[in-house]
């Protein structure tokens, strides 16, 4: 069974979606049951690959390959490395949690679960694709379900109703309305999201097609293409082709990440989406960007990555600061969390830009950690919205009387999002900060400022929602009391804190994926004195770890950084 684990993870949600088509909406229990059980299958199989992943051996494991089109050189080629494994796990955790978070959806529940399952399966598909075609295939496939999820089950923001006539007929359907950038409708959010992501996705597709052509191998296989990356180093248009491809791929995928100037679709989309969709969107969909950049740009064009990655280092500062400030001034719970997410994604870019063993591992762990933290926050924002039907922070307050459990969990969520010691976010943040200090001190200072900002806006929101005088209008609001409502939150909290206290396995898995990648990009092995080739990489990874929280000890890190800087010069 073990070797087929990836197929179970990927196809269980698809099979569930297919089965749901034949179930009537009049049987809500059956609908939810099918959705939850296929998500459970995915979750169990993800846990299996996460703990079954052989960190000593490293590389791509659980590999499955099926020829798909001979003429085009496409194979359904699945496999996970140390970078994909935690992200697959995060996706299935959030899918499972998301199904319980949306347990009370009444309107067209069947269709909701179908699209949610397809969305999750498509993101999982990206994380395990070793074929450029299928990477793009699943990437693009994840966009359309977002449109329907936002459009059908989403919500408008506060100013929406003032903008339409009483029946909401005329203006909502006009072209001008969709392109009215001040509007706050869910239709606008959904359309903007799809067009934005598609526009940049086709840029990435152009990059992929150029790789396909200039490798001349008639294959989309990443593992084959990465051995022939030097073929693309030819002059064109006053620069070299690999740089053009890299820019196309980087910005094509960075739009979903979202990096600073391309972020505007994201908070709007977060705000309009139903809770479970926001969770998947912020939790894993945004990571598709980072992951695809690592998979395509880092793997296939390592030399170019080393030259051009400083672009990300510059842009990530704007992401962190801009997102943080907007989140501080936003008055809508979901906008706060949405902008906080796009701000936090700046840390991942910082960790990726430093091109260092510690920082890139930190970036990958941060993706996992952020998925849990932001998943919790969106789930709770969704709960508050369901109870009060508003997301306007100033009009809320004092809800901790009515919902002590939620408010307690919210504190944990905020702590995780800030990166308190004890949560996995702390491990990740400290690794990013320590790993990139030598190369990008300014960015690290900005990141620190960003953490302070996170503290400020999350506490401001927490106070606004749960403390202070309560608006009597919301006295009917009640707490999450049922197992179904508490389960997703408790699960995400457990995972966040569990990996915060015992990060070793996660760290080793990630490290086994990061090590060969960084070795190819920077041409240095993790520790200066090692001289035995690839096996020493593993040995070095073990040396660098003090027992409890790995990256606090400074000495080995300094060595690594020195080494990687040496490689740059």
């Amino acid at each position, binding site marked *: 069974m073990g070797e087929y684990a990836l197929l179970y993870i990927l196809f269980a949600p698809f099979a569930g979606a297919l089965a749901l088509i034949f179930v009537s909406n009049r049987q809500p229990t059956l609908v939810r049951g099918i959705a939850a059980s296929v998500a459970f299958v995915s979750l169990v199989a993800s846990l299996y690959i996460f703990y079954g992943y052989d960190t000593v051996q490293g590389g791509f494991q659980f590999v499955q390959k099926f020829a798909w089109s001979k003429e*085009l050189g496409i194979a359904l080629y699945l496999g996970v490395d140390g970078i994909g494994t935690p992200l697959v796990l995060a996706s299935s955790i959030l899918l499972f949690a998301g199904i319980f978070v949306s347990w009370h959806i009444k309107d067209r529940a069947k*269709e909701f679960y179908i699209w949610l399952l397809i969305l999750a399966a498509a993101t999982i598909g990206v994380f395990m694709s070793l074929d450029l075609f299928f990477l793009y295939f699943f990437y693009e*496939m994840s966009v359309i379900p977002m449109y329907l999820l936002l459009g*059908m089950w989403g919500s408008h923001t506060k100013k929406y109703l003032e903008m339409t006539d009483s029946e909401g007929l005329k203006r909502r359907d006009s*072209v001008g309305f969709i392109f009215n950038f001040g509007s706050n409708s869910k239709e606008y959010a*959904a*359309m903007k999201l799809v067009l934005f992501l598609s526009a940049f996705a*086709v*840029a990435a597709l152009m990059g992929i097609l150029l790789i396909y*052509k200039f490798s001349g191998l008639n294959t989309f296989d990443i593992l084959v293409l990465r051995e022939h990356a030097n073929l693309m180093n030819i002059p064109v248009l006053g620069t070299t082709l690999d740089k053009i491809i890299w820019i196309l791929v980087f910005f094509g995928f960075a739009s979903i990440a979202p990096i600073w100037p391309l972020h505007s679709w994201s908070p709007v989309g977060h705000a309009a989406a139903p809770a479970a969709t926001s969770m998947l969107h912020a939790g894993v969909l945004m990571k598709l960007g980072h992951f695809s950049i690592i998979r395509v740009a880092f793997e296939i064009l390592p030399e170019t990555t080393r030259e051009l990655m400083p672009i990300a280092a510059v842009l990530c500062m704007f992401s962190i600061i801009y997102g943080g400030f907007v989140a501080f001034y936003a008055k809508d719970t979901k906008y706060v969390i949405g902008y906080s997410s796009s701000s936090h994604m700046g840390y991942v870019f910082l960790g990726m830009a430093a091109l260092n063993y510690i920082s890139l591992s930190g970036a990958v762990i941060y993706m996992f950690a952020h998925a849990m933290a932001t998943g919790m926050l969106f789930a709770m924002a969704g709960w508050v919205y369901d109870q009060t039907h508003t997301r306007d922070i100033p009009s809320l307050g004092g809800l901790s009387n009515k919902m002590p459990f939620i408010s307690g969990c919210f504190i944990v969520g905020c702590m995780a999002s800030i990166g308190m010691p004890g949560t996995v976010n702390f491990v990740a943040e400290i690794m990013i900060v320590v790993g990139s200090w030598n190369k990008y001190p300014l960015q690290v200072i900005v990141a620190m400022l960003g953490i302070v900002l996170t503290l400020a806006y999350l506490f401001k929101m927490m106070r606004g929602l749960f403390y202070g005088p309560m608006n009597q209008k919301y006295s009917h609001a009640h707490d999450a009391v049922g197992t179904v409502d508490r389960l997703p939150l408790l699960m995400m909290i457990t995972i966040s804190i569990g990996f915060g206290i015992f990060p070793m396995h996660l760290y080793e898995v990630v490290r086994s994926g990061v090590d060969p990648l960084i070795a190819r990009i920077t041409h240095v092995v993790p520790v200066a004195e090692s001289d035995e080739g690839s096996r020493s990489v593993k040995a070095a990874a073990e040396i660098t770890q003090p027992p409890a929280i790995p990256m606090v000890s400074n000495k080995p890190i300094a060595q690594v950084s020195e080494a990687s800087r040496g490689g740059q010069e």
Partner: protein
Amino acid sequence: MNFVLNLSFSDLLLLLPEIFLTCWLCVVITVDFVSPRLPKERLAYLSVGGLLVTLGCLAWFDVNQVSGTLFGNMFVLDRMAIFFKIFILGSTVLVILASIEYVDRFTLFRGEYYALVVMSALGMMFMASANDLLSVFVSLEFSTLGFYILVAYLRNDLASNEAGLKFFILGVFAAGLFAYGISLVYGETGKLVFSDMASAQATPGLIIGFLLIFAALGFKIGAVPFHSWIPDTYHGAPTPVTAFLSIAPKGAALAILLRIFIVALGTFKPTWIYLIVAVSIVSMTYGNIVAIAQRNIKRLLAYSGIAQIGNLLIGLAAGTKMGNDAILFYLLAYLFANLGAFAVVIAVSQAIGRDEIEDYRGLGRRSPFLAFSMLLFLLSLAGVPPLAGFIGKLYIFIAAIKEGLYTLITVGLINIVISMYYYLIVVKQMYINEPIDPSPISIRGPMKAVIYVGLAGTLVIGIYPQPFTDWVVAATLMFANFVTPAATITPPTVLIGS
């Protein structure tokens, strides 16, 4: 030029599908004439039966690789011709099934409707096999004759009459251009068979002649700047006829374009590539941008069809075998998605009586099946994975990038995003907006069957394209072999069986 008309029995076998269909056409007309009280639905099934038999015959030809030429190379039966014949007949079957209910709207001549559809299909089958400018001309006019009548079939509807008139005037004009083009080409080269022209010199007369021929065929496929009839005709014509018009003639005309540009003008590729690239870019961009402003679903699909033709021409611009494969593959994907979308349009218009996009409000609640089908068809047209249209577009892009057509691909990719917008506007109406009249919409059996076929095609080609790519590769392989000089100087012997 010697026309050898000593037809043997085995030669006639090559014509068997056409001969059978001609006889069947007479049977349909006669049955209608003899028993006027027969429900017209029976006539539809009678026609479908004949078409299915013909399809079976063609499938047998395809499996056994029957090929050969007739009438001094005027008529050629290679695997590409067989592919296009299957394509045309398949779309005819689906169109007839989809029009069974719609036919009740016609006041007169309900029985002849089916005969005319079959007649047009017959003309297009000859187009797929035409290997000579004269036979192209004759078969083109033969098939268009049926369409002139069909487009104006709603006698009391002004829009339909206008559509018919517009289509007729422009169609005759295109025929005139075509005839003039033929005369110039024949005057310059003294040849009519495509494969004989490969060695021609590029004289001004020849260039103008082929430009005129291209204009006439551009009219048939509806490429910009020859598209002006498309929106009004699609809008006014009876919807099943629109569906038919949007698929089958395009396929048949593309078969001719392939034969002309790859076979006859293969050596001039460095010259004509600019023409095709320009027409392709303009068609895609114009079609997609104008489609944004449409309020009528038929007009929207008309403009989207113009854009799709731009996409198909990318494959022609590539000019390689892979480009031809991609065109054939894309046509298959387009057949299922476009016919499916039109089937939904027919079903909705049967229930509501109108074709405006705002009439699709809340279709997701009124008929989840129709809305879901329409969603998949539109997304396939837009090129979203895992649907057939995505693979088709990618196939074409890959064929083009191998030839280094970067500008064309960039424009094509940008157009995917533009087209996403207007397709999603329909999706928004269906799913996001609430219905004004929430009464459910019911659909009848034949229509359901058409939609199921469309869904199956769209999904199967998208998820498992290997058998279909094999088929199109084999189809153009025979075609490619056939165009080599050796094969055309001495006409190959007729092969029956393998």
